Structure formats: C-alpha cells, structure tokens
C-alpha cells in the first residue's frame, strides 16, 4: 500500500472526567482514559503492545504534561514491542504519526496514545498560565519573547492573529462565531466545561486578553485525560467499533521552524500539512462530513478552515459569518463537542475523541445528522501543525 496510514485504524477511545478541579491525580485520570479506551476497542491490557504520546512527561509543576509513558506503562504493567514520546514533531498529532510508522514497521499492532493535562489544578498553586516568570531566565523557545513581557501562548498567538486580521480584513463579529458555535455545541455535551450559550454581546463584553484575542477566543485549561487505541487494520477487524481508518496524514514542515521567523504568521504552518494530506487521498474537502479543528485559540480554527480548503485563503470571515455553515446542522459542522474553547483544553485529543464519537453515531443530542463517515482534524500553533482524515469504512 502506497500510504501506510490507510492501514491503521482508531479502534477505541476513552476519556476521564474533565473538570476544573479533578481531586484525583493526573495518573489516575490517565488510567481512567486508558482503561476506557482499551475496553471500548474490545481489547485486553495484554493486547496493547505499543505506546505513544505527545509531549512526554514535562517533569514540572505546570500541569502541561504531568504523565509520561513510563508511569502509565508501569501502572498498567504493559509489555511493549515499541514505545516513544515525541515533542519536536508536527504538533500533538505527532504521537499518532509516529505510531502509524511503528505499526507499519511491524513493531506493534495496538498502540495506546494518551494526552493528560492538569493545568486547572496546577494554576491554583503557581503561575501555570505563564511560560516563564518575571526576572528569571528563559529557555528556548521562549528566549526571544521573554524580555518583552510576552508571557503566554496568547501573547505569541495574538501577534500572529493580528497579522491575519490585517491581511484578511476579518471582522470581530465574524471571529466571534467560532466561540459562539463551540458554546452552542457544548450546551448539548454533558461532559463540556462551559455549557451556557453565549451571545455576541457576551463575546464583546468579555475582556480583551491581548488584542485582537478576547477571552472567549482562548481555550479553557482543565484537568483531564483522553486516550485512543491505534491498531493495524487486519487486527482492527476483530475489535468492537466500526472500522475507522486513517485515510491521509499531513506531517510535513516546509517552513522555518521557529516561533519568531515562521514564514507566514498569518497562516502559520498549516498550508503545508494540508497540501500533504490532500495529496495522499482521492477525497476532497467537499467529502468531509464533520471537522474537528484545533481551537487552542479561535484563530487556529479560522486558519484550519482556510488551509484545509473549506474556504479560500483569507475568506474564512465570510464563510463563518452568522455561524450557520459551521453549526451542527450546517454544511460543515465544526468542533461538535464544544472544542477546547468550551469542552476544555485536551490539546487536540478531545477533537480526536469527538471525531470518533460522531463517526460511531454516539453523539446523542449533538450527533451530526446524515450518518457522517469522513472527519477532518487539525492541530495548529506557530510552527506546530498537523492534520489527518478519518474515514469509517463500513
């Protein structure tokens, strides 16, 4: 087979309780997600012979990445043929892309992938919403930002987003539609963090974090864990869920790999990965039934809509104007669980979980009509970008 990802399927998903105050340890949350994912696939612990994650244990108090592979593997007493974390890769999906390669190399058959965050609890005890502290010394990749009171991802992304607004002419009330639609979807998701719908007035009444980023353009730090099982297709046929293959991936990096020198801050690194993905499939944007697009900031979703070809470059404003096209009953439902903006910051794995929920018809009140079969997923943020297509085969 020309493209090895087509020989890999997502066979199970799991998610812990997602909250602003877990009350249990990050490892406990991770076990909840992992055990649920293994059971959901119809597998046993002993079937899992690979593990992959992004970005590995940060070994700090930030809650950004409090659990790595060794802790989880040991807790579950797994015996593995292959395992690897990754941080310098195509964003959060790098863990999936690595697992595809490992499965294709016959190093393993069923790979447990997880992403755990503990930022809601961590930020109560530290300045966990900042990447570094006043008066200290900063390491890569913050060294060029550090002296300028650019403390958080929001500071960097506001610089990128500002350039996008300048070049595209998008209007604030159009940008707002991402947050409004996400919240509307979250109102139908009992597991979402914020479920009360918001209006355009609410959006504009909320504080500006760093212009043009407003509060509701920023995702919500949470405590929680998501896990998925990636399986070789011939082994996946015995599992419980409908066969759902990875149709194509975009893992390239064609630009300057730098948070300051990235070629085009207005589009970030997404155009290159999207071009790679569409070059590995006969499908086209019109075939996508549901899009789970990264929304660490609403700007990322806007970037993804354009880069993945759902609308032309710098025309997302018109595409999302009024919100009807991207609503649950629109032509391209996005972030159907409420996304990171309203369901919580699961760093793209919330979106992977939700894509499977939709393709497997488990969406309940937020289920997209018409038996969706094709999902598009993206991650974004500065030089980090990745995307893939998920297709239910039956």
């Amino acid at each position, binding site marked *: 087979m020309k493209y090895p990802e087509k020989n890999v399927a997502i066979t199970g998903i799991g998610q812990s309780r997602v909250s602003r105050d877990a009350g249990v340890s990050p490892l406990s949350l991770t076990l909840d997600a992992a055990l649920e994912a293994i059971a959901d696939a119809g597998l046993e612990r002993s079937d899992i012979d690979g593990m992959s994650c992004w970005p590995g244990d940060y070994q700090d108090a930030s809650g950004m990445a409090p659990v790595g592979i060794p802790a989880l593997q040991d807790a579950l007493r797994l015996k593995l043929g292959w395992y690897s974390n990754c941080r310098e890769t195509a964003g959060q999906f790098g863990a999936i892309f690595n697992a595809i390669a490992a499965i294709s190399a016959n190093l393993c058959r069923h790979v447990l992938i997880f992403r755990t965050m503990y930022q809601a609890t961590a930020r109560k005890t530290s*300045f966990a*919403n*900042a990447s*570094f*502290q*006043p*008066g*200290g*010394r*900063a*390491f890569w990749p*913050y*060294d*060029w*930002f*550090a*002296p*300028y*009171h*650019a*403390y*958080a991802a*929001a*500071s960097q992304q*506001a*610089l*990128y*987003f*500002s*350039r996008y607004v*300048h070049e595209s002419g998008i209007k604030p009330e159009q940008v707002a539609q991402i947050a409004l639609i996400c919240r509307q979807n979250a109102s139908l998701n009992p597991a979402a963090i914020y479920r009360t719908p918001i209006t355009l007035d609410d959006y504009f009444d909320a*504080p*500006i*974090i*760093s*212009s*043009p*980023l407003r509060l509701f353009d920023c995702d919500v730090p949470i405590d929680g864990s998501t896990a998925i099982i990636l399986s070789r297709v011939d082994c996946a046929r015995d599992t419980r869920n409908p066969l759902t293959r990875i149709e194509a991936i975009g893992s390239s990096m064609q630009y300057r790999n*730098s948070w*300051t*020198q990235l070629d085009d*801050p207005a589009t970030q690194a997404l155009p290159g990965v999207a071009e790679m993905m569409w070059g590995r499939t006969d499908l086209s944007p019109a075939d996508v039934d549901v899009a789970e697009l990264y929304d660490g900031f609403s700007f990322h979703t806007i970037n993804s809509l354009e880069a993945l070809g759902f609308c032309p470059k710098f025309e997302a404003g018109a595409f999302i104007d009024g919100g009807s096209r991207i609503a649950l009953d629109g032509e391209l439902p996005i972030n159907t669980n409420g996304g990171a903006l309203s369901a919580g910051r699961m760093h793209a794995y919330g979106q992977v979980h939700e894509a499977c929920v939709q393709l497997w018809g488990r969406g309940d009140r937020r289920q997209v009509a018409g038996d969706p079969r094709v999902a598009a997923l993206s991650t974004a943020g500065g030089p980090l970008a990745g995307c893939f297509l998920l297709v239910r085969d039956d």
Partner: protein
Amino acid sequence: MDDTDKTHAARSLPFLTVDNRDFWTGGANNRLLIFRCNSCAYYVHPPTTFCPRCESRDVGAQPVSGFGTIFSFTMNYKKWFPGLDVPYIIAFVVLEEQDDVRLVSNIVDCNPDDVRIGQRVKVRFEQASDIWVPLFAPVSDLS
C-alpha cells in the same frame, strides 16, 4: 528611561550564549548587532554560523541601522502577574535591511493607541542586568 514602558515587572531574560551575546549586548555601545554573511551579505537571524543562502561559515555580528517596520503587534491587557502594569505593546519588527529578520520587541515612547502595522520604528536600548534589551519607538517618515 521611556515613559510608556511602565510594566514595572522585571523583564525575563535569555541566557547569554556564544551565538546570541552580540545581539543582546550591542546596546551597551548603542548598536544593534545582527549576524551577517561575510561572503554574500545575507543577514542570518537568529544568529548562526552558517549562511543558508551561500553556505559560507564566515558569518558574524555587524551593526545595522536600527530602523525597522512593525509587521504585527498586540496590545496586551491581561495582567499575567501582580505588579504588571497594562496595557503594553508587543510587536514583531522587521529590519529595514532585510525583511525576513523578524524581532520580537515592545513599542515604547508613544501613545499605544497610535501604533499601526507598517509603522516605521527605530531601536533604543534598556539595560537589564547583563543584557541591553532592544526596544523600538515610532519615527516620522521624514527622520
């Protein structure tokens, strides 16, 4: 000291290295030093001892004019720490000499509400410990 950069929180600083020392300390002599290829005159930033254009390894710090253009900016309102005075402006500035050299900076000595993308700016320096932090202020097109 300028009037608009009143954040009152100590700047966080990079670690000085063999490669970045010229950039972060040139301000002691009121010079903005950027690595440049001695073979083909291409500016290489962040400072690196390899020219990606002609593959020369003969690359070193040279002073630039200090003029640049605001490529993008954000007005930060969020009080990330107690004692941080807001709002203040963070910007990407591209050098007049070569527009793919992009610096993060603060725009100072001006009314923040008047800052615009495309505005011409000039460097000035603020000492913090062993580092002279390059900052930029708007200049009129005639200066």
